[in-house]
């Protein structure tokens, strides 16, 4: 609102100096020429065009695969295709991957855990242990297969970014030293920072090493759990055991986690390092396809 004295001044100028500034309104009856009468445009407040962004749906989009008749494969069919695509590759380096699409909300708790597969994909983890130097725990840890043991020496190596391990376990007695060292900035992004929640600050280091040696991590990202599930050399039965073990664990976690949110497995997709992704239909083999489990078990 303009100050009233300024308005008064302009009104005064209008009335005094230029008395005839307003054109005389031509007297055309409204009913004669409605088109000539101009509406007052200047005073019409234009509504700003606000293109509201469509609200992101709460859940991830999951299509109904049966309704869309999306092709799904039995495990043997999928393996036949994948083995054909990966023919001639060294089987130890090529991995089967699994993608579990979850029917879940975009926000909320996520699934994150590790699992010991019946047929491990990678067994030679390099484990480092933080524990008081020269103690019994340190010798026991080295005996169990840890590549690096210690407190200050290990912290110094980490500060210099000399990280030649892919698991880090901390003993309870060294927790304070670890917190004091302030390595979260380096270890955090790599996912190596020990924490009680991840069960990497433990009392029994040797047991933890033995557990995590054959274990593989998995976590839900964008509503999908992805992980390596087997080596190319595995037989259908081995792969089936791995997939079943993982799915059982994921399903039980889904049931555990959902108090108010619902979370369930929607689709299971098998793929390889260089291969296509094939949706599985939870069957091992279809007798009509004319391939046997044995034919997929041999050397590639």
């Amino acid at each position, binding site marked *: 609102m303009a100050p009233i004295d300024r308005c008064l001044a302009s009104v005064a100028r209008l009335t005094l100096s230029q008395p005839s500034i307003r054109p005389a309104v031509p007297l055309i009856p409204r009913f004669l020429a409605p088109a000539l009468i101009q509406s007052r445009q200047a005073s019409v407040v234009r509504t700003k065009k606000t293109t509201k962004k469509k609200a992101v749906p709460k859940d991830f989009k999951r299509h109904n695969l049966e309704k869309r008749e999306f092709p799904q494969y039995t495990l043997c069919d999928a393996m036949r*295709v994948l083995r054909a695509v990966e023919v001639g590759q060294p089987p130890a380096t090529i991995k089967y991957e699994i993608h579990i699409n979850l029917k879940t909300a975009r926000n909320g708790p996520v699934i994150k855990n590790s699992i010991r597969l019946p047929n491990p994909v990678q067994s030679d983890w390099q484990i480092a242990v933080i524990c008081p130097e020269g103690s019994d725990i340190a010798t026991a840890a080295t005996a169990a297969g840890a590549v690096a043991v210690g407190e200050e020496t290990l912290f110094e190596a980490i500060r210099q970014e000399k990280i030649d391990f892919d698991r880090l376990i901390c003993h309870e007695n060294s927790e304070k030293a670890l917190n004091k060292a302030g390595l979260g900035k380096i270890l955090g992004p790599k996912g190596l920072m020990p924490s009680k929640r991840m069960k990497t600050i433990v009392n029994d280091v040797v047991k933890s090493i033995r557990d995590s040696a054959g274990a593989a991590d998995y976590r839900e990202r964008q509503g999908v759990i992805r992980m390596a599930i087997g080596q190319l050399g595995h037989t259908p039965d081995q792969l089936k055991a791995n997939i079943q073990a993982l799915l059982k664990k994921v399903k039980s976690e889904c049931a555990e986690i959902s108090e108010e949110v619902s979370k369930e497995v929607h689709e299971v997709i098998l793929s390889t390092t260089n291969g*296509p992704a094939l949706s599985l239909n939870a069957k091992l083999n279809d007798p009509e396809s004319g391939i046997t489990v044995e034919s997929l078990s*041999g050397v590639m």
Partner: protein
Amino acid sequence: MRSLGERLNLLRKLINIRCGPGAAILPAEVTRIHMDFALRLKGGHMGARKFWREYLPRLKYHNPSIPMIVNRHDQNQLPPTMTIYLRKAGSSAAVPASSSSSSSEPIAQPSSSRTNLSKAQPPTADERVVHIDMANKHSSHILEFFMAETRAVPLQPTNEEIAEMQALETLRKNAEVDRERVRLLRLEKKKEEDMLKRARAAGGMAEQEEA
């Protein structure tokens, strides 16, 4: 996340490992195939690699139980060779017994390697070998040799499969046209945006000078 239609089209492309040159069923006497060539192409190793890349997946798809071993190394002076292990005619009479014994044989054969770890093994007692020299040959040429030596039965695509492949081909062509059109559109948009940006930058300078 990829949409369902995108994923469907990717799966439709898998028809390329079902049909095409190399889609053939090998006779029962072929026990295994071994290919030996270098990682680098120098010395006529290209045909061998192309054979592996283009035709071997199709062969493997239609003969999933036959081991097909690829051994690659860095010795370009060696000629690239393919070794086909065939069961001898006499022993093929006792198929069930010999197949169980010979199926245990290839386990001695190490699986494919990139570091020259799985050299061709000498044939077992009831096997004979055929060597194909792949040096300086085109991959299709190698396939002809291979088909003649093994007497494999090539699979003819059915009418539906031909129609599907043609549909995919038109899809590919249309996609190329569309990609070009969208590229031009985006280029024009970017050009305009750049021009505006430059104009703004210049105008901003002028205003500052005035001030």
